[in-house]
């Protein structure tokens, strides 16, 4: 692995692996699953070279457990999986949310349901990214559409995980995970890398869940002079079980507020000729590319078309959708799932009167620009 201004033909999965190392990740625990296995392979080779640890666990439940443990011991830790493995990880991810444990999970989406078509793409995990854990919880989910975004959004994911003490999921579809594009890896230092806050108070005064003004508490590492008690039960600022209803309300609200109050930094979108768009195409992941191609065709025909790309899937880009979607006459949401998981959110934001067209595929095949144009004309 070479870092520095060299152009390489890089695979999406490779870019995410290298970005993790770039961001300082030194622990990988996972279970191989198509179409994410290349990440496990890369880590098995590279982690040792950079003084890190790579483990193949017995299953995905153990994988996310190991990641949480490593993170609490002070390492930037991550795992990679696909739908079936991501389903297995949900309970432990809930623990990571409750314990405010920074970690990154890569979910390279494939055609389900269940084992499905392992080598074929889909975007059917959108709602699972938001609601896979039971109860009131919130994570951050990012979705890259290019190999370059695979790299930069994975560095971003680690930064967000560290800054907000929360699991961050990076979830491209199989096409983006497996495609190769010419890409120039940045030099170390070119892209900002953020580390978690460590406590500044002495150990006897440290409370692992007493947040600073930014909504996030410093996190001391297991094995240091600080005691960091993490319980999956409802707990107080010191981490020990607490049954007080006022405490429960405070904790649940705080887990949400720490993200909501920083939406400027967390909700990332890109727009392409969308400011004056009569036809707004909303897309995420690989369907962004077909949408952009379709919008360019429409512009050639004199139709003011633009694209809003959702890079952050969760929290949802309510404001951006409302602003650009509100100006448009027609909104088109293109996604590789049956139910229109993002279209439903767009509908929620824009209300009953909006003209929202859905372009869906659920057969493991790619959506073409022509299919999108057909829905518009």
């Amino acid at each position, binding site marked *: 692995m070479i870092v520095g201004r060299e152009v390489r*033909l890089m695979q999406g999965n490779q870019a995410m692996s290298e970005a993790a190392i770039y961001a300082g990740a030194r622990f990988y625990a996972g279970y191989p699953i198509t179409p994410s296995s290349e990440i496990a392979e890369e880590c098995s080779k590279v982690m040792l070279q950079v003084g890190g640890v790579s483990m193949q666990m017995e299953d995905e439940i153990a994988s996310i457990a190991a990641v949480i443990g490593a993170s609490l011991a002070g390492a930037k830790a991550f795992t990679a999986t696909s739908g079936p493995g991501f389903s297995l990880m949900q309970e432990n991810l809930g623990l990571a949310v409750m314990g405010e444990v920074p970690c990154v999970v890569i979910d390279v989406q494939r055609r389900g349901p269940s084992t499905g*078509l392992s080598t074929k793409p889909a975007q059917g995990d959108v709602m699972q990214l938001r609601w896979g854990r039971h109860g009131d919880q919130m994570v951050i989910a990012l979705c890259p559409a290019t190999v370059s975004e695979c790299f930069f959004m994975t560095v971003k994911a680690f930064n967000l995980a560290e800054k907000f003490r929360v699991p961050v999921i990076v979830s491209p579809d199989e*096409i983006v995970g*497996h*495609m190769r*594009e*010419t890409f120039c890896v940045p030099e170390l230092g070119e892209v900002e890398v953020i580390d978690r806050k460590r406590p500044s108070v002495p150990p006897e005064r440290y409370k692992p869940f007493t947040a600073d003004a930014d909504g996030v508490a410093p996190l001391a590492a297991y094995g240091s002079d600080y005691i960091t008690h993490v319980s999956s039960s409802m707990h107080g600022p010191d981490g020990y079980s607490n049954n007080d209803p006022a405490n429960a309300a405070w904790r649940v609200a705080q887990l949400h507020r720490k993200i909501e109050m920083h939406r400027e930094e967390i909700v990332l979108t890109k727009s392409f000729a969308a400011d004056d768009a009569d036809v707004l195409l909303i897309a995420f992941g690989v369907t962004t*590319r077909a949408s952009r*191609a379709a919008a360019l065709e429409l512009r050639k025909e004199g139709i003011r078309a633009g694209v809003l790309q959702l890079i952050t899937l969760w929290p949802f880009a309510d404001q951006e959708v409302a602003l650009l979607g509100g100006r448009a006459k027609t909104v088109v949401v293109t996604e590789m799932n049956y139910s229109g998981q993002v279209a439903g959110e767009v509908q929620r934001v824009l209300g009953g009167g909006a003209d929202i067209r859905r372009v869906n595929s659920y057969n493991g095949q790619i959506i*073409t620009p022509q299919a999108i144009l057909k829905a518009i004309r």
Partner: protein
Amino acid sequence: MSEHKERYEIIMAGSGGQGLVLAGIMLGEAAMFDGKVVVQTQTYEAASRGGFSMAEVIIDREEIIYQQVQDPDIVLALTEESMEKYATVAEKGVPVFYDTTLVKARSGIAMAGYPFTRIASDLGNVSAVNILALGAMIARIPMVRMESLAGVIRKRFPGKILEVNLTMLEKGAELIRETMGRIPI
């Protein structure tokens, strides 16, 4: 005669195990060495041998927005199934290279059938059909510089196998140079 242009779209299709994805990667790397922008995608089924497998490569000077081939400049078909899928592009004049050892002969001026498997086997490496075919395809349509692909092969293969593969590449190019004198293009 192909005039010089910047954008090329290539499809290479067949079955799992024929080295098509590797061919796509090598072609993409050659284009990268030419200083081009490249997107390479692939599709395959769950089994590592058999099933439909395909690599697509798009080469350009500027950003490649849509990642799939829409208007191929050249196609390689190594199975009947893939030939049936792509035969129609030959009617538009797009060269369709295929392996006569594995695929029934097709007629048409753009159809380019060669016994790739037999030639590769005679030269000592039947798994280098992909490189043999790439040599022919690049000689036919200059989507990358032949020397760039030779450089990619040098980086990827060691010792004896490197020599065999470089011979394969040259042999593929020769097939075209021999036939181009006889068929008006």
